[in-house]
């Protein structure tokens, strides 16, 4: 099969500061994503999900293993065509919403007319067209996160890395944003790697779901959802949706308890 992203035997250990013991965050992660696949990673808190994403983005160098994107190994630099949305608010407070979204395009030297077209479309897409002239401090946490999503999407990445992007949003907005994300994913044909702690989010959005163990994180199960490509949030009514979340929870219950206990 065609491979868009290949993660091979990736392990990561955080070096201890001072007299602390080193922390093993990831333990032998293997994963292959097909082009255009939507893959979600779900796992207990602190299992190394975010670390995995940073390694894929080239922001963190893994202790062992390698990541290959579009046939090239990722080495300490974010490769072209990869867009990342962080868990925390990464909007730039000194820029307006519009300038935040236009930021990446301007640095690339995209011409003004094209920048305007793409920025306006991206703001429309995340429902912030009316807030273009506002500054991030005037927006709610969820709206700021949507600014960051727009700022990443506007660069039209082929691989989109999302680190719990909807964590700050309320449940209804999450479902709607999820639906919008599905629409975008269908339109662009991008490959998506989503980190989430929402069972419903993973079950609704993904083609496949990787369930991670407590630290050190590794995949204990991979589920195939079997949804059609033109799915939307109404899959929550399907019986299979309930089965998927139940399967995830079966695996995660013990792991989550283990992660809280330690």
């Amino acid at each position: 099969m065609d491979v868009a992203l290949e993660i091979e035997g990736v392990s990561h250990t955080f070096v201890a500061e001072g007299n602390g013991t080193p922390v093993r965050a990831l333990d032998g992660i293997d994963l292959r994503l097909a082009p255009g696949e939507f893959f979600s990673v779900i796992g207990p808190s602190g299992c190394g999900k975010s670390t995995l994403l940073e390694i894929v983005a080239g922001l963190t160098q893994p202790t062992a293993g390698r990541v290959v994107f579009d046939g090239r190994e990722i080495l300490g630099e974010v490769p072209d065509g990869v867009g990342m949305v962080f868990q925390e608010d990464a909007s730039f407070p000194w820029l307006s919403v519009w300038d935040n979204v236009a930021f990446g395009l301007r640095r690339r030297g995209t011409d003004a007319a094209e920048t305007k077209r793409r920025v306006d479309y991206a703001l429309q897409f995340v429902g912030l067209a009316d807030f273009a002239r506002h500054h991030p401090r005037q927006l709610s946490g969820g709206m700021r996160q949507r600014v960051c999503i727009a700022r990443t999407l506007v660069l039209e990445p082929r691989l989109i890395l999302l680190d719990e992007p909807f964590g700050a949003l309320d449940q209804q907005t999450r479902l709607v944003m999820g639906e919008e994300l599905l629409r975008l994913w269908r339109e662009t044909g991008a490959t998506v790697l989503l980190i989430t702690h929402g069972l419903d989010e993973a079950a609704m959005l993904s083609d496949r779901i990787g369930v991670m163990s407590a630290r050190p994180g590794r995949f204990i199960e991979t589920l195939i959802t079997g949804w059609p490509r033109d799915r939307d949030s109404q899959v929550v009514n399907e019986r299979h949706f309930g089965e998927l979340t139940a399967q995830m929870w079966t695996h995660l219950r013990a792991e989550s308890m283990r992660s809280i206990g330690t």
Partner: protein
Amino acid sequence: MSRRFDGVLFTLAVLLLWELLYRVVGSSGLSSPLATLGAVVHLLSSASFWKNVSATAEAFAFAVAFSLLGGLAIGLVLGLSRFAGDVFDPILNALTAIPKITLYPVILLFFGLGMEAKVAFGTIHGIFPVIILTMNGVRNIRPVVRKAARAMRLTPAQTIRTVLLPAALPEIVSGMRIGVSLALLGTLIGELFASDRGIGFMLIQSVEHSDVPTTMAITVLLFAVAVIGGIAMLRIDRRLHQGG
């Protein structure tokens, strides 16, 4: 409106106190507000005053330029490199704490009497707050902001210009505000102690000649310039801290 009124009231109170003090102390120690005003007018219309002003202004301008540019560059480097920052942080704090007047004889030995010594002395006063606040400003940028810059594949130059400097700007401007005030202080102190021209030199000469009205007039003028400049810079500073 009421704040402007407060200012007027405060000025009147100071003038009144000044007049009273003058009546107690007498003209050998203090000149009256009116006599001082006369001396101010006399100064402002004399050519030698403006020659001294331009000498001070020139030294001050160089001291400010070196303090701001040098402080920005050094602060940026120290802020970006965790190791360098950790090494230099205590050294910088120690250097800030020493009374720099003790270094003046050394500076005079180095540069001799004149412009260079004054500029150097102004700069060693002005540069430290700029270094320290720029360094802290860069260090306090949230890691996710720097990660976002990397994720958008910015070059190092782009990262500094379009992310790090704007993100740290409010603190950098605070440092510059303090740096400018201290550079003026340093320049004037330099002129007071060893110099052959400039406002500080004029001031110390008028003291030596027991020319009380001129001494007072220069002091009042310096005070006015410092207050007006300080308020202007504080306004910019406040606006940046509120906005972003």
